[in-house]
């Protein structure tokens, strides 16, 4: 494991060459050496390749049935982005879920400590036995990923299907995805498919300016919104398929 990691950094060094890459490799090698002492931390993340998404909502449905999500609420959902006028048009799909941020605002505002980021795998979870349902996290999340579960009265959201992941399975949405658009894995494992996808593609995250450092990456996501429509004068239609028709 350890030698594998150093192999990779050496290969990177040779391939990229140049002083900048050398500096990068040195910077990467230092934490690797420090990590050798303790077991490497898992850091779950997801890449969503929107080129492979067909907007079928299978993930939405799988998530609902897997997690028994109440009517009117979603842990994961798909938005449609439609723009232009025939024949110059594009329609694309934007699957959404909790970004399991590295700087989760929901965690920093939680007054009871009910919501926290798991140290062992980076998943942001809600302890429904502690949460009081104050909705502060619903306000703080820039992605509208949270809701109050009417059955428990507590905050609820995607947890990367923690009950499945902890048994070595992939999240339900990943499992069901027809086009293979959702790739899940350990971002800290350089050999994982998800880490390779992040390295080899021009990935983006949603609302980067919020500073939350999301761990869900998108390939070829259309970041167009209604304000772009106003600015460019083009036709843009966004369907969220949620009770809050407007994106927040």
């Amino acid at each position, binding site marked *: 494991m350890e030698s594998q990691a150093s192999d990779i950094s050496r290969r990177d060094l040779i391939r990229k060459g140049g002083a900048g890459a050398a500096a990068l490799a040195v910077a990467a090698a230092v934490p690797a050496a420090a990590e050798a002492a303790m077991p490497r931390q898992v850091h779950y993340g997801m890449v969503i390749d929107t080129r492979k998404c067909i907007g079928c909502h299978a993930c939405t449905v799988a998530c609902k049935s897997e997690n028994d999500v109440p009517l009117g609420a979603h842990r994961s959902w798909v938005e449609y982005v439609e723009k232009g006028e025939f024949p110059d048009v594009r329609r694309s799909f934007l699957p959404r879920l909790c970004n399991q941020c590295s700087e989760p605002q929901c965690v920093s505002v939680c007054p*009871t400590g009910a919501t926290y980021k798991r140290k062992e795998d980076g998943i942001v979870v809600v302890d429904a036995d502690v949460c009081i349902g104050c909705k502060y996290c619903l306000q703080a999340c820039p992605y509208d990923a949270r809701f109050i579960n009417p059955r428990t009265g507590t905050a609820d959201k995607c947890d990367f299907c923690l009950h499945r992941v902890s048994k070595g399975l992939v999240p339900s949405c990943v499992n069901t995805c027809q086009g293979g658009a959702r790739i899940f894995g350990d971002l800290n494992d350089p050999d994982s498919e998800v880490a390779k996808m992040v390295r080899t593609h021009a990935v983006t995250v949603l609302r980067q300016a919020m500073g939350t450092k999301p761990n869900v990456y998108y390939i070829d996501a259309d970041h167009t919104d209604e304000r772009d429509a106003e600015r460019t004068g083009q036709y843009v239609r966004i369907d969220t398929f949620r009770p809050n028709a407007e994106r927040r």
Partner: protein
Amino acid sequence: MQAVNWGFPVIGYLFLAGIGAGALTVSSSVLLRGGGGGFAGGHFRLARYGALMAPVLLIVGTSLIVFELGTFEAAVAHGEWTKLFRWINLFLTINLSPMSIGSWALALCILASLAYAYTFVRRDARPGDQQDALRRGLAWIGVPLGIAVGVYTGVLLGAMPARPLWNTPMLALLFLLSALSTGVAAILLAKAIFERHGAGRGAAAAEGHGSAAKSGGGYLLAASDLLLIGFEILAIFLFIMFAHLTIGAPAEAMKVLLPGGQLAGMFWFGVVAIGLVLPVLVELKYVVPTLLHRKAYAIPRGVEIGVAALILVGGFMLRYVVVIAGQITGPTGI
């Protein structure tokens, strides 16, 4: 339309607890500044009104937010009665969340205000009686705790980049100033209503620049209210101006309050005109002659009540508009 997760319970809480915290702060500082008897007991009576109303307003306001808790709703819907008291979890921990610190500050403020009110309960409470030392000690605690409760609500709303309209330090200052000015207005209202008619009028007629306290402090309240509202207008100006001058999400969000926006009418008419400009103009009419020309301070009781009511309505509208506007706006882009 976006989901408004925080509705009337939160707005009502911000309004009532704001008045309560303001009344406690004003009462405590009035007592410490001039309520010891040097002003013929006039200021002491003002301190008493504030002290007696503060815990009631704080407790009623705080009870309101419990209705907004998801666990409370679930408890009622499914009969899970243990969940009615899930909010106890707030007091099993403390962290850097503004709501956590605020809950503790609020709890301490309620306890302090109850103790402080207790020292005023007796009808014959007066400066220098046997409760005096305790009363003054609690007043020293009441000032910072009242300010803490007045300011934390603005910090709580302002802590989130996901809510660009709230995400400004001006909001905390605005809420604090509004809490203090509505606190003053509530005391003014109590004074105008409960002060014995003859005593109030007779003293008011005799009140001049040098003997302002003899009226029972009407001049003191009106003058300080004028100052607070002046600062509040400035805070609102800065609140709007800075958001408007910023490019991106804050400027987009501020559009709901600017002319043509969804809440513009309510904001400019309810908050600015009714709650700030009108009371300032009326108070100026009565305060300026005393302030500049040393004339006796005389204000009809009806006007005093009217001004106080306008300020209170404006305080409610401010909370309403800010709480709703913050939630129907969000970050730009995706």
